[in-house]
């Protein structure tokens, strides 16, 4: 059966159409779902795409966290459903405490927009189950606040439990331990700074993001 994906959109989200297009390309049904929705019945996968939800006011993701849809996202996640946050979506997931840590301003204080090489560190996440451990992917990043930080205890836990999903080969933003993406303890909730939807077609220069989206959509109802 075709996987049904809800691509959640907030005021200021701007990667939703690219994300839908990339998901359609791999054979998923993907709907744009506005943030005032309170129920997400019928969806197999949730994606919180990139952008600037609520203009990044206060802190990126801080206000989106209180959108009506987030209660349903929490319920979906705690039931084991795959929830992926890309870039601003990652920021929303940390603000909502669905993932630990926080994303600070890049150490360079510069907006970074370029392709980076990231290594797959675990295949026990909903985003990497079809990838190989150690596989290197070339995927664009596009952010000002991608500098992942957390306290030492959390960092130790993330490493010990193999919850670092992607790691930069050359750290572009100052993230602790070169972290580009992490998951929760069940592996179903994943946040990453790189944009797999922007590496989903030869025309875009890379198709390395497809393996991540295909992993995500390999769930069936």
């Amino acid at each position, binding site marked *: 059966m075709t996987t049904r994906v809800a691509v959640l959109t907030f005021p200021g989200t701007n990667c939703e159409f690219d994300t839908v297009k990339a998901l359609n390309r791999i054979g998923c049904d993907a709907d744009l779902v506005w943030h005032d929705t309170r129920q997400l019945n019928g969806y197999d996968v949730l994606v919180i795409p990139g952008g600037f939800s609520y203009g990044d006011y*206060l*802190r990126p993701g*801080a*206000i989106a966290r*209180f959108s009506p849809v987030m209660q349903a996202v929490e319920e979906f996640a705690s039931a084991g459903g795959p929830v992926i946050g890309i870039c601003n979506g990652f920021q929303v997931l*940390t*603000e909502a405490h669905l993932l*630990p*840590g*926080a994303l*600070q*301003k*890049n*150490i*360079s*204080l510069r907006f970074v927009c370029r392709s980076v090489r990231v290594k797959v560190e675990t295949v026990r996440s909903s985003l990497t189950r079809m990838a190989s451990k150690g596989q290197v992917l070339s995927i664009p990043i596009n952010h000002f606040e991608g*500098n992942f*930080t*957390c*306290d030492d205890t959390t960092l130790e836990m993330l490493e010990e439990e193999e919850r670092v999903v992607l790691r930069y080969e050359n750290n572009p933003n*100052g993230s602790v331990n070169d972290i580009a993406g992490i998951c929760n303890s069940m592996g179903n909730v994943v946040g990453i700074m790189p944009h797999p939807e922007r590496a989903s077609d030869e025309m875009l220069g890379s198709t390395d993001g497809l393996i991540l989206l295909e992993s995500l959509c390999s769930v069936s109802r």
Partner: protein
Amino acid sequence: MLFTVTVEVMPKDSVADPEGATIARSLDALGFPGVAQVRAGKVYQLSLEVPSEDVARSTAQDMAGKLLANPVIELATITTIARIDVAGVR
């Protein structure tokens, strides 16, 4: 009663503050001597219509914990609480 509450949100000491570090370097480059460190944060001024100063304080604390600060990386402090009379004069 109307109160003005000032909430200061600063990066925790344990967290790197690239903005503060850049400002410190810039001050140094401008020729200001002796800048040992700069930490950059935010200040919020809340006008709260509440029955008492205690309620103003606890409300602001609650707001800081839920929204104004991210406790993972920031520390919120209530720095001032002032009662404003109807004419807007203390």
